[in-house]
């Protein structure tokens, strides 16, 4: 394959609507936070250059719509992910309960070559809310779940207070890089590529 070093890491951020996926990403990439809730439509990424050990890599962070009705084109972008971040809101039980579904769904749709060891990271966000008085999912419970799913690293974060966000994404980058498998080496069947061209459809000329 080419001598070009592969330095692009694809990270998918999943979780229920309103848990703070976009906020976490914005805090990490742009160092910005807004209290305003804006739904995400479809999937979109931001990139961030990050130093992992002594390598400089580009992280492509895919933010996704938590609301199903804003995910009309499906999840083709899961493919080729190097790490999947599962986010829940420590103040809302349901968002934690749904982590299972998000994880399953990801493994089915992304179909990584080694699902057992595919790197996930779990983030329990919004630990700042009401000074932690309104939290309903304990750290212990979340850690137990993460451990039971193949020792997934777990972080408690606050996008609002910028608490633990960098630390979490550092691990995300590190684990994504570890996952870097040999890219499928493509060898063309024949040297003469033009001879292999399939018939083009008879569409319009645009």
């Amino acid at each position, binding site marked *: 394959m*080419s001598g070009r070093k592969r330095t692009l890491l694809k990270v998918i951020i999943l979780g229920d609507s309103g848990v703070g996926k976009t906020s976490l990403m914005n805090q990490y990439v742009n160092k910005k936070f*807004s209290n*305003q809730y*804006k739904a995400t439509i479809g999937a*979109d990424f931001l990139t961030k250059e990050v130093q992992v050990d002594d390598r400089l890599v580009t992280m492509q962070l895919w933010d996704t719509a938590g609301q199903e009705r*804003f995910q*009309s084109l499906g999840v083709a972008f899961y493919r080729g992910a190097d790490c999947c971040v599962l986010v829940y809101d420590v103040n809302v039980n349901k968002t934690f309960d749904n982590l299972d579904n998000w994880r399953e769904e990801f493994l089915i749709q992304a179909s990584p070559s080694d699902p057992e060891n595919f790197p996930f990271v779990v983030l329990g966000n919004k630990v700042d809310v009401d000074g932690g008085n309104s939290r309903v999912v304990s750290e212990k419970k979340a850690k137990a779940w993460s451990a039971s799913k193949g020792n997934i690293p777990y972080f408690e974060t606050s996008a609002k207070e910028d608490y633990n966000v960098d630390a979490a994404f550092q691990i995300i980058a590190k684990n994504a890089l570890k996952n870097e498998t040999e890219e499928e080496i493509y060898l063309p069947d024949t040297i003469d*590529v033009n001879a292999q061209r399939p018939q083009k459809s008879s569409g319009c000329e645009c």
Partner: protein
Amino acid sequence: MNEHSITATEEQEKWLADAQNVVKQQSFYMRKALDSSNLREALKYSAQMLVELRTSKLSPQKYYELYMQTFDELRHLEAFFQEESKRGRSNADLYELVQHAGNILPRLYLLITVGSVYIRSKEAPAKDILKDLVEMSRGVQHPIRGLFLRSYLSQISKDKLPDTGSDYEGEGGTIHDAVEFVLQNFTEMNKLWVRMQHQGSAKDKADREKREKERSELRDLVGKNLLVLSQLEGVDLELYKSTVLPRVLEQVVNCKDEIAQGYLMDCIIQVFPDEYHLQTLETLLAACPQLQPKVDIKSTMAGLMERLANYAAANSQVLSVFAEVEAFEKLSTAVATVVEAQVDMPLVSAVSLHVALLNFVLRCHADRLDYVDSVLGSCVKMLAGQGKIREAKSVKAIVALLSEPLAQYGDVVTVLQLGHYGQLMATLEFETNKVMAVLVIQSILKNGTRIGDCARVEALFQLLQELIRDGEDAPPVDQLDQEDFAEEQNLVARLLHVLVNDDPEEQFKILSAARKQFGLGGPRRLVFTLPPLVVESLKLVRRLQARGEVEEGGVTPKKVFQFLHQTVEALANVPAPELAFRLYLLCAEAASDCDLEPIAYEFFTQAFILYEEDIADSKAQVTALQLMTGTLQRTVVFGTENRDTLTHKATGYSAKLLKKPDQCRAVYNCSHLFWQDQEKGTRDGERVLLCLKRALRIANAAQQQANATRGSGGPVTLFVEILNKYLYHFDKGNQQVTTTVLQGLLELISTEVNSESAVQDPATEAFYASTLKHISFQKQKGGEAGDRYEAIKVQ
């Protein structure tokens, strides 16, 4: 059909796989060219790779997969352009160079890719390049291809817009250029998306369904532009209000496409912040009635209201803003306008809109009962002339409108202040109305609510009409499920006990109001509803009695007794003679306690008349006489004349019962009528003895009758019972009951017990033995009782 669809799926898979293979192949050569820094080759292979995106065969989701694959590959190309640029190659040259690609679609993808690097280099103002790219993209008019191409432009340019505070602001342009660019891209994308609807046959159902499915899959590409707008730093409230929202709404309204309108309205509501919505409610809501009739505007508006309610719930300090911008008033007006404008709107949607509005009020302004009532009123107004609502979903929505305030306030008194509540309830057909009425009562009972205001009570009865009387809509009572009917009526009966006020005047008003309502219920209901009314009235009598003097015109026991008389009479007319009989006696006793002789006498008279005329069953007669005797025994109000009349009647009827044993027992019970413990009570030993002797005679006759018919005398139970009555009166000090009389009776029983014809009965024997033991015990006790019992011999 199924087989066909499997084939179609497989076909899609195959087409996608083919295209992906070509992309792999071409990108392989592209990367090779990139590695050797061969720009021309790289461009050639990348263009050949991008040609695959010209396919018309793939469904949007499959096309998206192919797009994602090429998208990833183009990042390598972009990185190369970046390096080239760093190495000193002019971006303007590159921008020219890629335009040599033969096909327009690959050409534009390449152009946008270079454009990205070009903007970043700042060699030309961002706004100019963006403008050029968005204009050039017009060249692709095929909807799916065009949408993905513009989506690529949107994605690539997102972080390079001359947004406020961005690197590209200034020479690159201003926020206005950024907004203009996104709006233009949005408008063009929406047009492409809407145009799809008009391709192909409108009549062919399968064709239309397929097209609508495809459109639905593509919608996020269009909606994402709105997300980009909402993420721009420079789009502050001012700009949003003056430019962004009006322009977006203009496109939404003018496209006249129901799929686009419904979706985009939802997007606007979801991607822009609550603060903005609050400050632009009028504009946003004004668009709603202008949408196509088939747009599900209910969900859109409900979505908005839910969002705002969530916002208020999470930030109580913004409630003042809600008031300031008159959020409720605007939403309320909008609901009414939309319902009016969309004549074809299904009823359920119209009612659901009110449910959404109500939930908004309950969450944001729970203290504003006037708001709650105005929502109900608006719904009533809308339903006017529709008659009873029977369509299941609408009914459910109306029930929700009625149940929410109950649940919220947990207090019917509050709900009763809602003037339109009853009117709304009246739109429900019989069965549902009843269910709702039951809910109301259950809420009252569960929450221990006390309703002590006559006006409220009347309002409450208004709500409970279907339970209280036969409505026009209701089936005849005898066709109802009797078990349910009884259960419901018992609930109404229980309700009466919470309609209390400490002020007797108000209490009497309440009872009179209840009486009036219950009176409409017909005989089947009266038997359930009137008894508690009588009981409550008697409670009132007791309170009045304790109160003593009253002012002129105030309620008096007499008044209440008149009320009671008329109430019990109604029960008697049902007819429910046994029930009325009991209640007459209760009233009689209460009147006696109040020292109202004529009234007490009247009640007794009525009871006797009922006995004579309507209580024919011999068992019922036995019970009735027991009650009569008991009550009369406790009554001390009567003068000799009245008393004699009544006791005479009672003893007379006792002796006329059908069965001898019943006669006997009734008669010995009558002995109590002549010996009252009370201070003013009658004590007529002679007549006591007469009763007892008469009972004894009847017992004898009973035994003879048994002998004659069955050949055995039967147990001596009656004799033992009579003996006990004698002992009772003996203990009471009745001089007529002498030890001689007792001795005689004891011997009689002893003979009977030992006679051959006696029937063994363990219970009677035990009773007898206990009686004898009692006598012995009294003898041994000594003192006064011992002396009295001294003379009695027990074997």
